[in-house]
């Protein structure tokens, strides 16, 4: 293969080399990375490019009838590590992840020192460090994969942050996890928004770490909670984060994932409605540089009537081997009448040599719903955007940055907390500045 990764991506031009070595269109042949059993893949590149085939088959990814994987509802959940088989990389939920780079999170006991937790919170917020036996642990979710179960088996103490009932916080809570080294570790965080409380929590991840993290988020009835999970790790970090939220009656949950720094990041946010009338927004922003693997798998489980969910993840990719994965599962169960749901993923590919996988899955078991939609688009710069801006005198480089910034801004604008918006805008600016180098 010719090496053309240094060439600036031309808008609208077909990519001469849309694939990463060892990756095929469908992703299953990651096996050279994961199991070493599969065939070479580069000769199988379809001439149609990476998009046509993937979108055409995106609905078949769950496997066939009778296979447990065929419905998200059938996925194994357990607190017990041993219930999960050793990973091969062929599993539906691991087939895009290079297991080799997980640094043992899926296979070793997680005995390393967990990232240090520091919390700054406005008055009224309760912050506790508790042992494994605290009754609140396990109240929002059961591990849904082996890496999450491994963290469950391995964590020593948990941090619990509680927004008291009927309290509206004036400023945000900041929970900062600072990596303590790259021995595989386990972490456990619980966030409780009590009845009719209102608050914003920023979960920041920085430093160097190899960590599997379980975050449990409980929204009691009528609570409004925004959680921003910010991944700004050092380049050597590996992070798997299962973030499960349980949504009470008429509660509103906004979850924003921002993944920028780290070698491999895999965040799996799940939202489950425990009672009718809840609203969930899952937003995500990621910017993958050369060699980074940023994976996000969202799951909204509509098991209650009259709930609303909206999922929007947007990502930019640049540099050789930059790989992003978004898999969005929405399950509308038989009793979830009146559900209104939508999910969308958009990726902006800035250079050759990147790969964006995007799989929106929608399962609907009742016809009595208000709406259900899913969408995915991966593309290069829009020629017409660039032309419009340049026709107003704006130089090409400035116009490009304006467009990328604008593309990602759509997520930042959703946060509605100026301090965090500014912080994220700066973080995106740093990524954009790196583009120019």
């Amino acid at each position, binding site marked *: 293969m010719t090496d053309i990764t240094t060439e600036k991506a031309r808008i609208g031009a077909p990519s001469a080399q849309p694939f990463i070595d060892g990756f095929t269109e469908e992703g299953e042949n990651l096996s050279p990375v994961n199991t070493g059993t599969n065939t070479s893949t580069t000769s199988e590149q379809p001439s149609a490019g990476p998009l046509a085939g993937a979108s055409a088959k995106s609905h078949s990814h769950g496997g066939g009838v009778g296979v447990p994987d065929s419905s998200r509802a059938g996925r194994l959940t357990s607190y017990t590590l041993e219930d999960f088989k050793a990973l091969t990389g062929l599993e539906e939920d691991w087939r895009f992840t290079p297991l080799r780079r997980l640094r043992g999170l899926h296979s070793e006991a997680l005995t390393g020192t967990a990232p240090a937790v520091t919390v700054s919170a406005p008055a009224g917020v309760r912050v506790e460090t508790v042992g494994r036996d605290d009754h609140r642990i396990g109240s929002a979710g059961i591990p849904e994969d082996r890496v999450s179960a491994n963290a469950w088996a391995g964590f020593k103490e948990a941090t619990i942050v509680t927004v008291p009932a009927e309290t509206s916080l004036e400023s945000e809570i900041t929970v900062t996890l600072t990596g303590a080294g790259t021995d595989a570790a386990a972490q456990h965080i619980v966030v409780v928004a009590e009845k009719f409380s209102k608050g914003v929590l920023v979960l920041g991840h920085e430093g160097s770490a190899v960590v599997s993290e379980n975050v449990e988020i409980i929204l009691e009835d009528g609570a409004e909670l925004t959680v921003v999970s910010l991944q700004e790790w050092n380049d050597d970090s590996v992070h798997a984060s299962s973030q499960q939220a349980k949504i009470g009656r008429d509660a509103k949950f906004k979850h924003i994932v921002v993944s920028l720094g780290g070698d491999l990041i895999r965040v799996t946010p799940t939202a489950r409605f425990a009672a009718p009338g809840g609203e969930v927004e899952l937003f995500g922003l990621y910017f993958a540089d050369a060699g980074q693997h940023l994976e996000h798998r969202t799951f909204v489980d509509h098991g209650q009537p009259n709930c609303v969910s909206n999922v929007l993840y947007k990502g930019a990719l640049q540099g050789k081997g930059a790989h992003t994965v978004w898999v969005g599962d929405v399950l509308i169960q038989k009793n979830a009448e009146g559900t209104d749901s939508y999910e969308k993923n958009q990726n902006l590919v800035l250079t050759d040599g990147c790969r964006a996988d995007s799989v929106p899955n929608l399962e609907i078991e009742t016809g009595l719903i208000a709406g259900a939609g899913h969408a995915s688009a991966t593309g290069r710069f*829009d*020629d*017409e*955007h660039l*032309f*419009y*801006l*340049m*026709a*107003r*005198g*704006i*130089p*090409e480089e*400035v*116009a490009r940055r*304006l*467009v990328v*910034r*604008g*593309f*990602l*801004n*759509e997520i930042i*604008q959703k946060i509605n907390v100026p301090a965090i918006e500014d912080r994220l805008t700066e973080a995106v600016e740093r990524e954009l500045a790196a583009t120019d180098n």
Partner: protein
Amino acid sequence: MSTLEIKDLHVSIETEQGTKEILKGVSLTIRTGETHAIMGPNGSGKSTLASTIAGHPRYTVTSGSITLDGENVLDMSVDQRARAGLFLAMQYPVEVPGVTMTNFLRTAKTAIDGEAPALRTWTKDVKAAMQQLRIDADFAQRNVNEGFSGGEKKRVEILQLELFKPKFAILDETDSGLDVDALKVVSEGVNRAHEAGNMGTLLITHYTRILRYIKPEFVHVFVDGKVVEEGGPELADRLEEEGYDRYAPGAGVAVAPAVQA
């Protein structure tokens, strides 16, 4: 005094069927203070001329020239052309998600002037210009053209025209899709920019309606990629009565040779 000169311009595009020539030898000279109307049926190449002047990459100039005060426009990139003083009000302005109007206008003005506009006067100018064009103040915080109606998009194009103060404005069917009220508002904007005294205008239109509000000194009729007839405002009146049918192939009208005004 500036001059935009188009000489024997031939332009083609790539289609699935191969290369197709759209402009087949267009010559036109516009000077500061002049308003030229280009009229013609659908598919005659009017919009191609507009986009070519602005430098849209879809169009390839195969021969001929465009110069601005003697400078070769075809050598300039899209943004250089805009900074040199050419402005294209687009027929279908695109939506640019995530980029607010405020940010966009300031970035463009900074690029065109080579320095950031003084914050206080700039904000005031933008506000005043928006008011005159009856654009709601909250548009400033909205993303460029996002969710704007057709009429709103056109007004925002004219807003830019008034703020950026180009040497030459090319209005590509700015009137299409506008109701009478919006048409008046937009025309007033163009006339204001014109009265400021440093602009020439190339008004591309399918209909004669806008010519009730913007008075061209010169009218050029475009058919099949060429100027087939030229004249003064009276030519527009005649087109209003007779339409373009007489220019259809085989209509048997002796077409006056195109003479540059």
